[in-house]
């Protein structure tokens, strides 16, 4: 991937698109220059008529040409806006995607998916709005203000200066109000976020709310948020309610000046009726850009804030130390003095153990013991704060990430389904052979299920996998991990949602179909792991004991406690085996 440094700010960003942006600027200026000409033509026609040398054909030709040119250039300007802004948006999105795809999992966790999603959507939209609206609006506003002021001065400098004296008042009034409004806008966004949060929670927690009959407290929460939103928007309204009439009033005062002073000049004979008309029309054109610039300052501020957030993503350092080692794993795994801290919280404390190739290891322990984190470490999804993870005696960081991932299969605790076909969901890596796919499906006891589907493996798994039961989803997750024909398989509480008979069948299949596999399994059930080569007992981040079932029964009171808590169940399942 080609590395290019991202633009420092939104204005520098524009230079990346110098071609289309300069086209936009040129077209915008032409369109506005043409628009200024119109009042001139009208005033010329009136004056010519007064002088008696008015030719209607000339007027029609001139005016029509100008009108058509205005049409063409305004449209061109709009098209250039669309092209420029969409291209900028597309490129930024691609840049963000490219950046994120080289980041480790811990980055996404830290940045949180919700915020990254915002980067992709509303932040990019803000920059897009800046390119599409602010650029041409500001160019045209400045051009109009300068151009019209010049024209007014040329037409009648005395009247022009009097009229222009009023303009700064409008600008100042606008500036102050907008400054206040901007703060309120931020507050109002916060209120909306709050509102949305209450709505989201009331939908996600619908069942709970009904079970506790807590609809009324929820409604009160909502009213609070809604009242706050209303209060802020009424404040904003109050500001605009005074601003808009005031601006109109000042504009009208300028008209009044034109009538009185212009009338005076006309009566004196120092000004023509045509110029008088032109003054009135120009005034109408002049006010608009001032208001536009005010609004655009908001757009620019927003775009700058958004682009700042995007930059944070684009400039985030890639801390990945990917080694180049692409060896075929035997399956020896070693965890050496590993500690993991999340801020002040310690998730794992000085954990060490080793796993021989082809052996079976179970990790057992209470809730929040750090079991899942341990598995994340073994896939490189999480980096240890201190200590080492070794595969076949070599540090995990020496390995090429891809090579490692294609040999270590991971069945996550939560079911993750993609809106793809079943085949794509299972043969998830690019290199899955058909025979491996089939063996994986068979092992996960999915064959009957797949065969019963009308479109077999090509069935699209619907969004969020709602058409599948919890057990089916977990089996698909297992098949996905097995399909890469892994040397090491990591199971995270795989049996929690699969019933006992299916579970024992699947575990039997794994032993039969993948005899050389190194298995590391997080579980709650002792009965299914008693015969494992090694059992590791974790509690609150510490490794309390390791050894075979028999050894732990002798040495670890905590293990015996867990065992006792499950004993009655074991009886029944032993009966079943007998």
């Amino acid at each position, binding site marked *: 991937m080609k590395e290019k440094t991202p633009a420092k700010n939104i204005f520098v960003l524009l230079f990346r698109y110098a071609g289309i942006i300069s086209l936009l600027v040129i077209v915008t200026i032409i369109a506005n220059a043409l628009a200024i000409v119109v009042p001139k033509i009208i005033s010329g026609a*009136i004056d010519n008529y007064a002088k008696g040398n008015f030719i209607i054909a000339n007027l029609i030709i001139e*005016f029509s040409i100008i009108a058509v040119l*205005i*049409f*063409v250039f305004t449209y061109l300007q709009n*098209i250039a*806006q*669309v092209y420029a802004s*969409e291209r900028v*948006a*597309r490129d930024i*999105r*691609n840049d963000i995607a490219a950046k994120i795809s080289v980041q480790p*999992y811990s980055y*996404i*966790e830290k940045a949180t998916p919700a915020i990254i*999603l915002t980067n992709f959507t509303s932040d990019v939209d803000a920059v897009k709005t800046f390119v599409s609206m602010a650029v041409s609006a500001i160019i045209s506003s400045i051009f109009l203000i300068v151009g019209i002021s010049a024209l007014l001065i040329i037409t009648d400098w005395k009247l022009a200066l009097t009229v222009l004296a009023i303009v700064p008042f409008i600008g100042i009034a606008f500036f102050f109000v907008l400054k206040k409004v901007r703060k309120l806008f931020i507050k109002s966004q916060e209120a*909306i976020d709050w509102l949305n949060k209450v*709505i989201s*929670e*009331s939908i996600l927690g619908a*069942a*709970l709310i009904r*079970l*506790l*009959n*807590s609809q009324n407290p*929820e*409604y009160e929460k909502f009213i609070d948020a809604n009242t706050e939103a209303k209060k802020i928007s009424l404040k904003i*309204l109050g500001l605009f*309610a005074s601003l808009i*009439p*005031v601006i*109109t*009033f000042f504009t009208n005062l300028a008209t009044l000046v034109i*009538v009185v002073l212009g*009338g*005076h000049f006309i*009566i004196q004979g120092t000004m023509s009726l045509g110029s008088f*008309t032109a003054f009135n029309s120009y005034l109408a054109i002049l006010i608009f850009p001032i208001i536009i610039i005010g609004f655009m300052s908001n757009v620019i501020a927003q775009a700058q804030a958004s682009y700042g957030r995007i930059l944070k993503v684009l400039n985030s350092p890639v801390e990945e130390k990917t080694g180049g080692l692409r060896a075929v794993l035997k399956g020896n795994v070693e965890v050496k003095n590993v500690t993991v801290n999340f801020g002040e*919280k310690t998730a794992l404390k000085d954990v060490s153990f080793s796993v021989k190739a082809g052996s079976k290891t179970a990790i057992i322990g209470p*809730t929040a*013991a750090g079991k899942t984190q341990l598995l*994340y470490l073994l896939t490189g*999804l999480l980096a240890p704060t201190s200590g080492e993870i070794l595969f076949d005696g070599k540090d995990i960081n020496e390995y090429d990430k891809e090579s490692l991932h*294609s040999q270590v299969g991971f069945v996550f605790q939560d079911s993750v389904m*993609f*809106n793809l076909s079943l085949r794509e969901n299972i043969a*998830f890596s690019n290199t899955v052979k058909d025979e491996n796919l089939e063996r994986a499906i068979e092992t996960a006891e999915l064959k009957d299920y797949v065969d019963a589907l009308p479109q077999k493996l090509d069935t699209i798994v619907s969004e969020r996998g709602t058409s599948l*039961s*919890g057990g*089916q989803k977990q089996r698909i997750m297992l098949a996905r991990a097995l399909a890469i024909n892994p040397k090491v398989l990591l199971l995270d509480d795989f049996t*929690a949602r699969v019933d*006992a*008979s299916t579970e024992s069948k699947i575990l039997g299949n794994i032993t039969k179909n993948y005899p050389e596999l190194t298995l590391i399994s997080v579980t*709650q*059930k002792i009965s299914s792991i008693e015969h494992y080569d090694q059992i590791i007992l974790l509690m609150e981040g510490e490794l309390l004991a390791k050894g075979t079932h028999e050894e732990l029964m002798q040495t670890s009171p905590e293990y015996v406690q867990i065992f006792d*808590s499950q004993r009655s*169940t074991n009886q029944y399942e032993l009966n*079943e085996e007998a």
Partner: protein
Amino acid sequence: MNYSLTKTDIEKEEQKGVLSTALKRLVPLMAEEKRTVTIAVVAIIVSAITALVVPIIIAHIVDVYFISKNFQGVLLFSGLLLIVFSAGLASNYIQVKTMGGLGRRLLFNLRNKIFNKLQELPVAFFNQNKAGDLISRINNDTDKLNQFFSQALMQFVSNIILILGAGVFLVVINWKLGLIALIPAVVVLIITQLLNPWVKRVSLRSLRTLGSMSGEIQESINNFKVIVAFNRLDYFRNKFKEANQENYSASVSAGIAGNIFNPIYVLASSLAQLIVLAFGIYLISTGNFTVGLLIGFLLYVNSFYNPLRQLASVWPSLQLALAGLDRISEVFALESDIKIMPKEKEAALSSLSAVLEFKNVFFHYVEGKLVLRNINFALEKGKTYALVGPTGGGKTTTASLMARLYDPSKGAVYLEGKDIRFYEPAERVKKIGFILQEPFLFNGTVRENILYGNEDYQKHSAGELAQVLEKAHLTKLLSRFPDGLNTKVSSGSDAISLGQKQLIAFIRAALRSPDILILDEATANIDTITEQLLQEIIDQLPKETTKVIIAHRLNTIENADEIFFVNAGEVSQAGSMQHAVDMLLHGKRES
């Protein structure tokens, strides 16, 4: 009742009568605001008139006093102008203030109504519609209404009045010239009508590509760990790139199509000025018109075409708001089918000893297939019951009927001898505690979550609450959280494990000390030692508490007094634990 909302909401757009549907939808909302509406309308009309009389006054000044070189007259009428401008200032202020206030109050009420409706609807509604879709739908639609009510509505109304006013003035001053000046407007409206289908088509396509692109982002970001662990980053980046490119081309064509209107309106406005100018000068030369009137006329042409252009630009937001309102009305139209039956019809009591009884209960979800078939059983006070059976067999459905999350399609559920449908929700909820399979947490602290919906302890100090928890034997469980009661939790984050979430749900239910406590696989992800602790807590619940336990793991149910085997919509009594195990292991499975 079928609660599923129409899915193809972007697709469904009515062509016909935007204005009339707008009136139909908006007018009822304003029913309570008659006074404000009247004031606003008066203010709008006054402010429109003040804007519209200005050109005619100027025309008069030009024609009469400029020509006769009477500066006194100019000053006199300028004074009149000043009065008109001041009136405009006042009416303008009132207009913005009342219309804006009205819009915001409408929005406030509408939002409350929506939320209230959401609270009324039963669980079935939330199960039939995907939570994510529902959230984005409600949030987006209210947001669109927000934009409309706080910004577009005012522009919309005042522009319409300005257009009408300017049109009237044009025709009244000189009907021939007036009508000719309006011709370009008519042409533009026709062109708009002709172009509309095309513009709509391309913008729809752009909306759809945008949707699939954000879907792509969401899917990959939320499941990043799987993508990393399976080396699929490149695949997803390419898929995203494709979606992004597709969105780009669709957006560009949508932009090109959507932007056609503005230049056309500008063109129309220029043409109207040209016509007025050429024809006006001709009329002046024939003595039928004056220069002052011509200047005034040109101003009216502007005050007609500028609002028209603005109207065209706010039109899409009106359509969006109406579409949003439509979709929200769809939710309004839904009625909860979980109704409380009136007291006077209260049926006779059934066998008094049973705390909960199912009598000939049949149940099916909307799709039709029977989930429960003629279920009959009775639960007695203080006993522990276990529901076992394969996935999809109907365990959760049975439990949901006990808590009246659903009503039976046929038959009835009796709570303490009375049909459960006669209970007021507050009373029913006091009696039944249900720990859901998927625990839900509110963003906040553990304390807030375990006291959620529990009025009794809300105001307790930390010390008092600690006593309550100690008495309920729940203190040990709280040590599983690093900061105890003050530990921050949130529903979405991975920082708190599934097991911990289930613990919170358990504490929440246990604290309420219900008569019947239902645990729906509520401990699936809790380790066995903590689970034993839970068992001890359950054992220490008051003797009269009836417990219903649904579980995969058999040790959780070994203390049950009675075991029900639930499969294929039937509930049968399993004589013993061993019997249940045999059925579970050898019975046919549904999933």
